[in-house]
């Protein structure tokens, strides 16, 4: 049985004149629907590139990327954009909220282009921001901003939630809270969540851990019993 997400021999090569530099050098893995996946690896290992390819923000040079049976590696630009808007929710390290829009409006920004969106206010309440909906990003703390970002990603009702170092700019506790939110979302809504991080410590909380080193998958673990994030210390 093939996975919900499947990468086969995915390569990303950058040609710099004569030299070819592989950012991703043949990555293979599968992810099942509803899993909480952590992709972990040191800086420059190629994990962000993998995430970009998976999120339709970049294309692979070689290999196949299947998401829910669709081969997105063969997608053209426009198809990729449609893929992004309909199937992917993205959470950035620096939240990337539009400063000029309130929390609610930032969520609505995503919703207005979505095919089957959830209610923005409801989603914000779910991420615990029922009181801060009308605040501008500058008036929110980092954690709150990231919650808005997550709400923005979730409200689109995507198939995949991709998170790029979601706790990178947050303090320990807030980071934990965010990770919990993500884990809860996965558990409660059956959302497939992929988190990229350089912090191996959070690996135990995942259903599936994929370690990447030098552009290749160095290890892939299935965690039979993931630990709730509250119990993880780092």
């Amino acid at each position, binding site marked *: 049985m093939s996975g919900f997400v499947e990468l086969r021999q995915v390569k990303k090569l950058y040609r710099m004149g004569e030299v070819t530099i592989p950012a991703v050098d043949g990555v293979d893995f599968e992810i099942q629907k509803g899993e909480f996946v952590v992709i972990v690896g040191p800086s420059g290992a190629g994990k962000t590139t993998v995430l970009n390819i998976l999120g339709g923000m970049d294309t692979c040079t070689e290999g196949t990327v299947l998401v829910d049976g669709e081969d997105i590696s063969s997608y053209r630009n426009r198809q990729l954009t*449609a893929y*992004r808007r309909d199937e992917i929710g993205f959470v950035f390290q620096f939240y990337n909220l539009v*400063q000029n829009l309130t929390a609610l*409006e930032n969520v609505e920004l995503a919703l207005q282009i979505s095919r089957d969106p959830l209610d923005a206010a409801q989603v914000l309440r779910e991420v615990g921001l029922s009181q801060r909906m009308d605040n501008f990003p500058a008036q929110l703390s980092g954690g709150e901003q990231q919650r808005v970002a997550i709400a923005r990603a979730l409200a689109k009702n995507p198939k995949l939630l991709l998170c790029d170092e979601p706790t990178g700019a947050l303090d320990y506790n807030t980071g934990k809270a965010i990770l919990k939110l993500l884990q809860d979302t996965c558990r409660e809504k059956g959302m497939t969540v992929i988190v990229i991080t350089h912090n191996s410590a959070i690996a135990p909380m995942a259903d599936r851990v994929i370690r990447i080193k030098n552009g290749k998958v160095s290890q892939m673990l299935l965690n039979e019993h993931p630990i709730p994030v509250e119990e993880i210390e780092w």
Partner: protein
Amino acid sequence: MKKRALRKDFYMEVKKTRNRFLSILVIVALGVAFFSGVRASNPDMVLSADAFYDETRLMDIRVLGTLGVTEEDVEAITRVEGVETVEPGYSVDMLGDVGEHQLALQVMSVPQKLNQITLREGRFPQEAGECLADTRLVDKGFLQVGDTIRLKSDSEEDTADLVRETEYVVVGTGFSPLYLSLDRGTTKVGSGSLDGFLLLPGDSFAMEYYTQICVTAEGARELRSYTEDYDSFVDRLVERIEALEEEQCKLRYAQIQQEGAEKIAEGEEEIAEGEEKLADARAELADGEKKLSDAEEELADARAELADGEATLAEKEQELLDARAELDDGWKQLTEAKEKLVEGTRKIEGAYGEYEAGAAKLSQGRAQWEAGLAEYEKNVAVLEEYRQQEAQLQQLLQAQQLTDQELSALGIPRLTPEELAAYEGQLAQLTGGIAQMEAALPEAKRQLDAAEAEILAGEQELSEGKALLDAYNAQIEQGGSEAIYAERDLEKAEEEWAEGQEKLEDAREELLEGRQRLTDAEAELADARAELSRGKQEYEEAAAENEPKIADAKEKIVDAKRELSELEQPEWYVLDRQYIQTYVEYGQDAERIGAIGEWFPAIFFLVAALVCLTTMTRMVEEERTQIGTLKALGYSNHAIAAKYILYALVSSVAGSVAGVLVGERILPLVIINAYRILYANLPEVLTPLDVNYSLTSSALAILCTTLAALAACYKELLSVPAALMRPVAPKAGKRVFLERLPFLWKRLNFSYKATVRNLVRYKKRFFMTIFGIGGCMALLLVGFGLKDSILYIGTVQFGEIRTYDVSFGVEEDGEPEEQDALFAGISGDARLTSAMWAREASLDVEAGGVIKSGYLLVPQDPKGLEDYIHLRNRTSRECLSLADSRVVITEKLAKLLGVEPGDRILLKEDETRQVEAQISGIAENYFLHYVYMSPSVYEELYGEAPVYNAIYGNTLSTEEAFEEELRRDYTRLEAVSNVTFVSTMAQRVADMLKSMDTIIYVLVIAAGLLAFVVLYNLNNINVSERKRELATLKVLGFFDGEVSAYVNRENVLLTVFGAGAGVVLGRLLHRFIIVTAEIDMLMFGREIEGKSYVYSVLLTFLFSMIVNGVMHFKLKKIDMVESMKSVE
């Protein structure tokens, strides 16, 4: 910048931010180019023209005399101090026929020294019958080199009094500095506007005096035309020449009087001659008539004679017939007499026969007697001989006895004895015959005597018969001779008769001949009569023809005498270049460009400065971290700021240089070339770099940019390094004013909410963009508005205010009846729908020390004026009437004089005639100045009724051919001095607009460039500032179009606001330029048409859209990876 690392950094910065560097360079170049270029256009225009004037030696002054100018005047002017060159010449307006074209031509003498002609084709005319034609005539297709022009006068003067030949061959074409433009001015000949000039050699003119003297001032060439210096310099010479006027004119007057008197004498003589000739002819005719009547008399005599002759002839014929009868009688008697005579004669002849027979017998008897006698005598003779021969023979025979000696001595031969025997026989015979004979002879003698007696008796009887016969015969012979006489007489009579007959024949013949002659003479007479009548007719014709001529000539002489006596002392017109139409128009156009260049490029400049400021600020902001690092490393503020200042300096200096070069070289060329549509003859456009404009514009541009850079740095350099190293906290989102209006805010689309917030968020960019787009919009609006304003003169002045179609100028000194007849003729013309008398006079209007020239207009019927001229106030739209005792003046005049309704103004026709009037209203008017008053006010002010000298009319049609015909019909009339059509003036305004078109293109292009540079630059900054946000949107799955729309929505809104601001700015600028650019006698429309707003808005949006289109591609290139980067 001694630090090598910093220097390297600077180069790298320039290289890396090529676009930014170039955008500063370009905007500075644009600003400088427009600022210096448009400003330089005015001096360049003047300079180009001045160079042309100097090269062709355009006259500074022209002296005209009302009675022409003479060689003496030329000499006098030559002596004036400061005069350089003097050239007298001829100039006369005539009609010229070429093919089917009839042209109104200014025929001039070929200038030698001044106003030199630039040859375009062919050569200059050298011989009589050659000419050089205006290039305009060739360009308009009227003629070409090699064609022949027939000149004819269109005035009172004969063609022969003007030019020596009437036909001229075009040997070349050229243009004159007197005509830079296409318009050749107006004339009294033909259709009223000149088609071009024609140059003839000086000696082709037959005029007795020069029409003008062209003069150049010494040293004027070094001065620039159109400048104060030049004007005042030439003015001084004008005054010096004017000082000669009185004396020269007096001389001229005396000369003319003398010449005139001579001519009149000549004319009178000619008339006398003509009259004499006519009288001679009349006398001759009378003579002829007399001769004819004589001849007729003679003919009658001849006819009487002929009749007499015929009578005589008949008489004579009778006489002759009588004579014939007598003659015939005579002949009869004669014949009878002759018959009797013949019978008598025959009887006598019988008697004579008997006598003859008797005579014959007698003579026979006598003959027998005589024969008998003869024989007897012969026998006697023979006897004798016999006797002798016997003697001899005896002697011989005796002698023979003698001796021989004696014989030979006697000469007798010795006979032989035989011979002696013969001889003795013979002697014996002879003695026997003698004896016989002596016996017979006495018988014969008696017989013969008896016969003789008988014969004598017969002869007696016969002679007695004969005498009787002869007597009878004589009787007969006498009757014969008598008959002969009678016959002879008769024959004579016969001869005489024949002669008479002959004479009669002759006489008859003569009579016939006479009759023939008579008929011949009659025919001749008829001929003579015919000839005479012909002669009479001829005479009558000649008389009919000549008498009016003579009468005319007499009248003319009377006129001439009167004219001469009325002739006023001539005047001079000493005219400077201000009286050359093309010179003035060109100057005004240059000034207009100057006025536009005064303020118009300032917008550019301002925008350029603002763009530089934004760009530099953005640059400094982007390099915040680097500035912090350098500061932390211990670099001085100077060293750090130097990079940005240098960056600004280098780019702005480069931009200035490019701008000056392009602007001053190309812009004036473009603008002047646009004007060359009008001033086709300007040979060369000079566009030198103007130091003044170059330096001021460059300095301003460089200063603006550099100060902007300095200002931007200054703020950053004040901060401590640590602060600089930290990222700037993103500008907090803010609720905008609009959100306080929930009913409106809620209705807004989500995207628009974001847009509105964004707009408010970047205030600097917001205003900059609005200013840029507003500038663009304003420029367009000014461009189209200028056109509207000028067009307004045409549409409103000639379409709404001056609504009459034609005005006829009428000679003021005409008799009232003549004028009434003229007016009746005009108002009765079916081509005119209405007509009205008016008085038009030029006058000066003074108020508060300001004097302006205008026209006084007094309509005969102030109430009816409405059909011809609408008097209304421009702003209140209120109609003004001339009802009360005050006057209405036009708007521009009121503005120039600074007067309002209720104020008083001085109206001056000349120094001695001044009146004061009160203003009742200000009327809308766009061309020239007018003072309107009713006839009663005129009378009140001037103390006399107005003399009307113009007729305004409305026509059925304004088509060119129609007006042309009307003009031709009325300019012929002596009382009409000119015919002016409103459509012609409207056309001139339309021509003026043609050059405006190019100005508008320049403005549109300028506006487009401005919009581009500003929008592109600001958009670039906008996008680079918001790269992360846009990348995030892309990650969120916004399509490219949606991302563009997100940004462009802001641009569209900004364009809308900018356009709004542009309307305000444009209206202000338009008003300002219009007021600055318009000349005194014009008022441009103050309003911009709706159409122009629409065009301007559409164009502004078009430019904005183009920039948006370009931005779309730029947005497409934004990498989503940007969203991953940390905040700087």
